[in-house]
Structures are given as structure tokens and as C-alpha cells.
């Protein structure tokens, strides 16, 4: 110590120390500058970035689903509505003993083990403050029972949600379609995904799909401040959702019900149309299915049963059922024959019961093997003489036949407001070559003349063509929508859409329509199944063979299994002078088309008189 003290020089030491104080002060200042620079970097340079991050942290934009627009029939009866369903939800945060609560609720409300299992699965995935559904659809009794006992279960509550409901169930599904949960393929067709931020459902088929953008409405938003745990602290502002537009269909639900009843026992379709504007009044495909199943989520078992049923309930026959037309094509060919001048109304041919193209050709049978004697256009229609039309078709040639069929709307979509419709098929040499790779023979023309061969039409197309005949050439396209009403009270009328008018002379219309009247009223008319109505009707029957009968064989109904029996087709309009309704009927494997049409027409023309007054004429 002593020696060291010897070296002590207070002055030097003080200087060393004071120099160090200066140096350390400089170091401290440098550190302060580093900190400050860092703060400048974060708070000035990166301020925007971190402000956004902070905002994203705490501000949640919660979308609110808009109420879907409603669908009504032409008289304001509701066809698609939003009804509240009650679900039992549990908030884990507020529940003291989860297992005890769930067990008690299960006993109280008789909840299935499946529901409980699903609940526990969700419990693992969701937040503590989320509402987790224990039972999705409660009955009124369950709701009542729960409310009486609610005080025992502090974390449980009944929540009402709006769900689409179709009160007519299977009766209207062929127009309406249905909504279902949005799946992957649906998301691809959503143009504005943000508008669907809160939506769980989307139109899958029919009107629900076609008018999806109008029915859906505009999403609303709630700006919510949330804390780190994700709980909403307060609502900052909200923009109310705008409900979707309401759609009024041209459908007359009373007529639809009658048509459904008339079709009950049959597979097939019936389409009723107003020829004065193209309004579809009824459209039935039977058998059908309840769309409400699809809204709530159909089970695989239920879906497979529908899909695999031999009766094809999912098959919308009115717009997708492509049937051979059979004899209902005949009035159009006769019209074209007279109008083009190939024949006149008086041109006639003797029917021995068969037709030959030339002496060497095979025999083309008339449906009545004994033959029907002398036939002109009118009688050939009323008695549906095949021989006359074999003869006529050779005079017309396939090109004229194809063209006139297209003019009457066959072979192309009608443009009805349902996306799923199919176009049918008009036969032509080109079509045959493409389909079968073989060229067109005269025999094909003959087959076409009786609506067989390649000809395919939907019942809806047949209704449109019938309407053109009823209107003597004026072509109204099929229309399913009367008007659209926006939430702010505007009514957007859907005007009738006209197709290209078919210009044919009165000398063509007159005998053909007379022939169609004879179908019902003449002694030998083929429409005997229609009976004797209290109004004038023009009609044409048809039978489409599904079973190929050999040239020299005789077809016997009892030999053919039920599903291979002939389809019956029927077209009609009434009253004849001022037609108010057009019907097209296709009944699979059963001849009753005309009888079914009678029930529908009687109802419309006899029991619903007030409607005509309303609509004017």
C-alpha cells in the first residue's frame, strides 16, 4: 500500500478521471442518439406501417348479412321467405361446469348424442367467448322448455337466425330452385366476395340462382373495436345491410297446386303459359323434392336416396326433360306446308294404313293400321294421320322442316329465367352426321314428320310453340318474372319479350287451328281423353315411342315393361278465339296427358274467372 501511495499523484488521477467523465458523457450521448434515431425510425419513417398494424389489431370490421329478398307468386302469395330458426348456443366463458351443463341440457331438451359430440368438437376449435351451437333447430316446445329453465344455465342462450324457407315445399322447386351453403365452386362465381362476407347461403338453382345478385342484397358492416382476446369492446359505427330485392313471379300458385295435384300419380311435366304475354302460370315436374332439405343441409343418406331414385325426383323435367315430340309437331309442319305453298288446305292423300317413299321402299306405318281414308291438313291433324305427314314431309324436305321448327323455338333455350334449361334438338342432316356419323335418308325425314327420330323438346319449348300457334304467329318468349321490387319501393316491371313473329297467311292458320279444335270436338279426334269441356279448346295429342317396334311387328302395350311404354304428349290452348292459357304436357310411360291437361284448364278457365278481369284481355 505504502509503495503504491508513493505513485499517487492526485493531479494526474483527477485529470485521468475528468477525461474519462467527458468520454463517458460522450458515450452516453451517443447511446441517447442511437435510441432517438431508433424512435424516429419507428415513429416517423415506419409510422404508417405500424399505424396500420395497430388499427388491424384492434379494429374489426364485422359484416352483417343482408336479409335475402323474398319471392312471391303473381298474386302476392309468398313462395320463398326467411323464417327464424332457434338454435341453442353455449358460451364457454360464461359456463361454470361445461360437462354438467351439457348433460343437463341434453336431458332437458332431449338432444341427440350426435349433437353433443359435434358440440365438443367445435368447443376445441372456438374461442372461449364464442357462441357454440349445441342444437341447431329447436322446436317451439324446446324453446319454451329452455326459457323456463334458462336461469339454471347462465352460459346457454337461444339465438334466432334467419333461414330460407319454401312453404310450398316440393310444389314450387322447379321454378324457385333453392339456396344452399356456399361451397368452393360457388365462391368462384361470386363477383364481389366482400358482399358475401357475412352470407352463408347462395342460390343454387332456379330463380334463386338466376336472380342471386338481386335477391342477395348488400352487406352491412359493423366496425367493432376488439381487445387482444378478440372480445368486442364497443361498436364504433355501423352501416346497415340493404335487403335484397323481392321478386314477383308470373306463377299462379293456385293453378300450380292444381297442376301438382293432377300430376300426382304420374312422372312428367306440365307447363301452363299465358299466350298474351309469355307469362309462365304453372310449371310442374313430378315427382319432385322438398328444397328445404337442401337449405338446412341434406344428409348424405337423404341425398343419395333422392339421386338414386328411379323416379328421378331431382330431374327438372319442365326445362331439362328432352322428350321426343311425337305427333304434337304435326300442326307446325302442316302450317309450313300450306304457308310455303307446297300443299293447300284442300290437298289430300289416301291413307291405306302405311306409306312408301317409292314402290321399292320399306313400309312406314300409320298408327292406325287399317288406314284413315282421304286426308287433308285439317283431318290429318284431328286424327293425327301419320301417312299424310309422311307424304307432306317429303314435299317439304328436311331443311324446311328444321327451319320451321327453329322458328317455333325448338332446338334453342327459351331464355326463361332459369339457367339450367336445356335446348332440345331439331333434327337436320348436319346434326345426324355429327351424332351418328351417318348421312340423312328420306326415312329420317319421315320419322321427323311424326316427331320421332332425333327430335327432342322440353315441355317448356312445347308450351312456347303452342303459344305461337295460339297467337297466330306472335311469339312471346317464356317469362317467369312479373316484376322486381327494390327495398326503396321501386317496382321494376319485366316487359314481355317478343321473338321473331312468324308470318304465315290466315289460310294456313285457319285450317290448322280448326284441325286442332277437331282434336277435342270431332268424333274421330284423338283428344277423346280430354272429354267435352265447357269452353273451346284447340289441341294436339302425341305419342312418343320409346321402344323401337320393328317394321312388320305390331306394338302391344302389355308386352312392354312400364318404363318402356310410350310417353304421351299434349298441347292445347283455350279459349280458341282469344286464348288465355296454353298448356304443354309430357307424361312418361302413360297415355293420360290430355286428361291431366283438362283438370288444369278447367280450373283456370272455369273456377278462376276473377283473374281474367284483373289481367284484362
Amino acid at each position, binding site marked *: *500500500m505504502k509503495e*503504491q*501511495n508513493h*505513485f*499517487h499523484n492526485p493531479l*494526474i*488521477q483527477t485529470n*485521468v*478521471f*475528468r*477525461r*474519462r*467523465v467527458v468520454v*463517458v*458523457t460522450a458515450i*452516453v*450521448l451517443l*447511446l*441517447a442518439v*442511437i*435510441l*432517438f434515431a*431508433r*424512435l*424516429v425510425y*419507428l*415513429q*416517423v419513417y*415506419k*409510422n404508417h*406501417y*405500424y*399505424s396500420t*398494424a*395497430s*388499427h388491424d*389489431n*384492434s379494429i374489426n370490421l364485422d359484416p352483417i348479412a343482408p336479409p335475402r329478398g323474398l319471392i312471391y307468386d303473381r298474386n302476392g302469395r309468398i313462395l320463398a321467405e326467411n323464417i327464424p330458426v332457434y338454435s341453442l348456443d353455449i358460451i364457454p366463458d360464461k359456463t361454470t361446469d361445461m360437462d354438467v351443463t351439457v348433460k343437463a341440457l341434453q336431458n332437458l331438451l332431449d338432444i341427440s348424442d350426435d349433437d353433443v359430440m359435434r358440440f365438443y368438437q367445435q368447443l376445441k376449435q372456438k374461442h372461449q367467448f364464442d357462441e357454440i351451437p349445441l342444437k341447431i333447430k329447436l322446436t317451439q316446445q324446446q324453446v319454451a322448455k329452455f326459457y323456463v329453465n334458462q336461469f339454471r344455465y347462465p352460459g346457454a342462450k337461444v339465438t334466432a337466425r334467419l333461414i330460407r324457407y319454401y312453404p310450398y315445399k316440393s310444389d314450387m322447386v322447379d321454378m324457385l330452385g333453392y339456396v344452399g351453403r356456399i361451397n368452393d365452386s360457388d365462391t368462384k362465381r361470386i363477383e364481389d366476395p366482400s358482399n358475401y362476407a357475412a352470407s352463408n347461403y347462395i342460390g343454387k338453382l332456379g330463380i334463386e340462382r338466376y336472380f342471386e345478385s338481386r335477391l342477395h342484397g348488400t352487406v352491412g358492416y359493423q366496425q367493432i*373495436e*376488439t*381487445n*387482444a*382476446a378478440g372480445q368486442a*369492446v364497443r361498436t364504433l359505427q355501423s352501416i346497415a345491410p340493404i335487403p335484397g330485392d323481392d321478386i314477383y313471379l308470373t306463377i299462379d300458385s293456385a293453378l300450380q297446386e292444381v297442376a301438382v295435384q293432377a300430376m300426382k300419380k304420374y312422372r312428367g311435366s306440365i307447363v301452363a303459359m299465358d299466350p298474351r304475354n309469355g307469362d309462365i302460370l304453372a310449371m310442374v315436374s313430378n315427382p319432385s323434392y322438398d328444397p328445404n332439405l337442401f337449405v338446412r343441409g341434406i344428409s348424405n343418406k337423404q341425398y343419395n336416396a333422392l339421386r338414386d331414385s328411379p323416379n328421378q325426383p331431382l330431374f327438372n323435367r319442365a326445362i331439362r326433360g328432352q322428350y321426343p315430340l311425337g305427333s304434337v309437331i304435326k300442326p307446325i309442319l302442316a302450317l309450313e306446308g300450306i304457308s310455303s305453298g307446297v300443299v293447300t288446305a284442300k290437298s289430300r292423300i289416301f291413307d291405306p294404313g302405311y306409306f312408301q317413299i317409292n314402290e321399292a321402299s320399306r313400309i312406314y306405318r300409320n298408327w292406325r293400321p287399317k288406314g284413315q281414308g282421304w286426308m287433308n291438313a285439317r283431318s290429318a291433324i284431328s286424327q293425327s294421320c301419320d301417312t299424310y305427314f309422311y307424304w307432306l314431309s317429303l314435299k317439304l324436305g328436311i331443311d324446311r322442316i328444321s327451319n320451321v321448327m327453329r322458328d317455333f323455338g325448338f332446338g334453342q333455350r327459351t331464355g326463361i329465367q332459369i339457367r339450367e334449361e336445356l335446348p332440345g334438338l331439331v333434327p337436320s342432316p348436319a346434326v345426324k352426321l355429327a351424332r351418328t356419323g351417318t348421312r340423312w335418308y328420306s326415312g329420317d325425314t319421315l320419322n321427323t314428320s311424326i316427331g320421332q327420330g332425333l327430335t327432342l323438346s322440353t315441355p317448356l319449348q312445347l308450351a312456347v310453340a303452342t303459344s305461337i300457334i295460339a297467337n297466330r304467329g306472335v311469339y312471346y318468349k317464356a317469362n317467369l318474372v312479373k316484376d322486381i321490387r327494390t327495398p326503396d319501393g321501386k317496382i321494376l316491371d319485366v316487359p314481355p319479350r317478343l321473338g321473331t313473329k312468324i308470318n304465315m297467311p290466315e289460310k294456313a292458320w285457319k285450317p290448322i287451328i280448326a284441325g286442332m279444335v277437331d282434336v277435342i270436338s270431332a268424333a274421330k279426334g284423338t283428344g277423346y281423353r280430354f272429354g267435352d269441356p265447357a269452353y273451346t279448346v284447340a289441341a294436339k295429342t302425341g305419342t312418343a315411342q320409346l321402344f323401337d317396334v320393328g317394321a312388320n311387328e305390331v306394338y302391344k302395350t302389355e308386352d312392354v315393361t312400364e318404363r318402356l311404354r310410350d310417353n304421351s304428349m299434349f298441347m292445347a290452348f283455350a279459349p280458341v278465339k282469344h286464348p288465355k292459357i296454353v298448356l304443354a304436357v309430357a307424361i312418361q310411360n302413360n297415355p293420360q296427358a290430355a286428361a291431366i291437361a283438362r283438370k288444369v284448364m278447367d280450373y283456370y278457365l272455369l273456377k278462376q274467372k276473377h283473374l281474367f278481369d284483373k289481367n284484362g284481355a
Partner: protein
Amino acid sequence: MNKIDKRNFLEQWFPSYKIGHHHLSLWERIHIDLPLLIGLLLIIIAGLLVLFSAASEDVLIVVRQMVRFGLAFGVMFVVAQISPSRLKLWAPWLYGIAVALLLAVLVIGYTGKGAQRWLNLGLFRFQPSELMKLALPMMIAWYMSDRQLPPKASSLALAGVILFVPVAFILKQPDLGTAIMVAVAGFGVLLFAGIGWRWLISGAVIIAAAAPVAWHFLHSYQRGRVLTFLNPERDPLGSGYHIIQSKIAIGSGGFLGKGWLNGTQSHLNFLPEHSTDFIYSVLGEEFGLLGGFILLSLYLLVTIRCFYIAYHAQDNFSRLLAGSLGFTFFVSVFVNIGMVSGILPVVGLPLPLFSYGGTSVVTLMASFGILMSISTHRKLIAT
């Protein structure tokens, strides 16, 4: 109280007053360094304001913090009355006791939050490592004060041992943050003692070389903190969450901040530990760069006042101790703000005079007591 009474009172309680240093102010006679006191009070008031916001406007927490500061000011005041020469006398004893207590902690200490840091003294729990924050710089200053300055290698080596033993004990607890600060306090003495730059540089090289070895001894949560510091996005919802949210809080504050009580990061609980270690982030969010600048300036003023006191201290012990305490104070500010702003790893150190919490406040105010003592116990020495 009339003038005579007042004088008698002061002479009775403050001997220096009686000695007759009539040129000394009242504050100096009660051993309070006024500029330092004002600086401390300004920081503490600002801290209480921010704490009120950080504690979700819970007045009780602010009151509790005020009580704590009140007690700590009492400790400061008492320590300020102890003359530096007496402190020097006590230094080796204090150091010895502190080392013994640290050893006791390792043997019988109370475990909290996974680390053994406390001794349960019945009434309260005591953290010996806090005592070491003062005892170590005092000990090294005591040791250095009689050596040749700048120090020779041999005295540096012994100082190194004095430093290493308690730091190793604290690391063992494990408490990396406190260990670092204790080491900084000891190192501060050497820095002011004029340790050669050669030594500093070679020391830095040795530390850099030892880093992989140290890595081996780090606890997994400490390794995690280092890794997270290097890349917070490594684990954004786990250990990186703190620092990411803290940077968001500070960065979103911008130039003027979101306003007092309007910080969403802290009020909505996105920012963890917002009343303790991460309280600066609350200030940054609510008062912006301007608030940060003002607070940094206050810290600098206090630090520079400490250096001023050291500069004018009259013996080596006082100088070295004062300088080291000021240096340690600022380093702890730097480490905390550096850590919440993402330029240093999260080591779990409070922001001095700001963070809500216990023992460290008392230790800190005791160190300011020492500084005030050094500042006010100057003798007039003729050269």
C-alpha cells in the same frame, strides 16, 4: 417556527449545518442535490401519468406506486445523510454481506416465476441481487480508490474477480437482466477509473468469443429471447409477440402520439407487461416521438447531473462511485428502451423511475441518495 428555532432544529438534525458552512443552501445542508431532485421528480411525475394510462386508469395502482416512491424517497433521504467516507468504510462489509445473501438465495431462496431470486424475511421478500447493484460498485470503487489510476493489470484482475463472483451467482438464479446491470455497475467503476482502451477492446473480443460458450449455459427461455430478438417474426404469437406488439405501439404513436389514455395497444391488452417492463411503449404510443424526446432528455439531464457530481467529487471513491451509478442509471434506460423498441433483446429490465414495481425502485433511489451524499458532503480543500 421563528428563525432561531429553525436554526436550532437544523443544527440539531443536520450536523453539517452546525459546522458553519454558511455559504451552503438549505438543500445542501439537508444533503439534497436540488437539480437531481427536480430531474427525478419530473421523470416520476411523467411516469405516474403514463402508469395511470397503462394500468387501465386504475387509481389504486398509481397510489401504490406513489407510496412506493414515497418510501424510496425516504431511503434516498436517509442514504444522502451518510457521508461518502462512511460509505467507503462500509463498502467491503456491504459487499461481503451481499455475496453471502446471494449464496443464501441459491441455497434456501424463494422461487418465483421459475427463478430463485428472493429471500423470504417473514414480513417481506428481499432480493439480494438488488443490494449487489450498490454493493458491487462501492466495493470496486473502494478497491480502486487506493490503487494507482489508471489501474494496472494486477489490480484489474482482482477487480475482475470481485465483479465476477456476484455476477455468476445472479446468473445462476437465473436473472440475466440484473446480472447484466450489476456487471455494468462494476464495469462503470473501471471505466471511470481509466481502464485502458486496449483492455476494453480485448474484453469485448473475449466476450464475443465467449458468446457461443455462454449460449451453452443459457436457459432455453433466454435462448428463445435472443433468437426472438434476432427475428421477432420467428414466433409472432409466442415469444416474438411482446416485441412485435411493442414496436406496433411505439410506431403507431407517430410524432405526437395518440393522446393520453388513447393508446389502443395497451388499453386493449395487445401490449403485454404494459405497466412494467414495456411501459415505455405506452408512452411512445400515447405521447409519440415528442414525448419520447422529452423523456430521453430528462434521463440525460439526470445522468449528466450525476456525471457533474462525479466530476466535482473530491476523492477517488466518491468519483468512481458517482460516475458508475450515473452510468448504470443511463445504461438501464438504454437497455429498456432499446429492448422495447427492438434494438436489444428482451432481458426483462424495468425502465428506471417509470416501471411499476418493487425492489428496484428502492435500490435506485438509494443510489441517488449516495449521489446526493457525494454532491453535498464536499469539503473545502486547499490545494
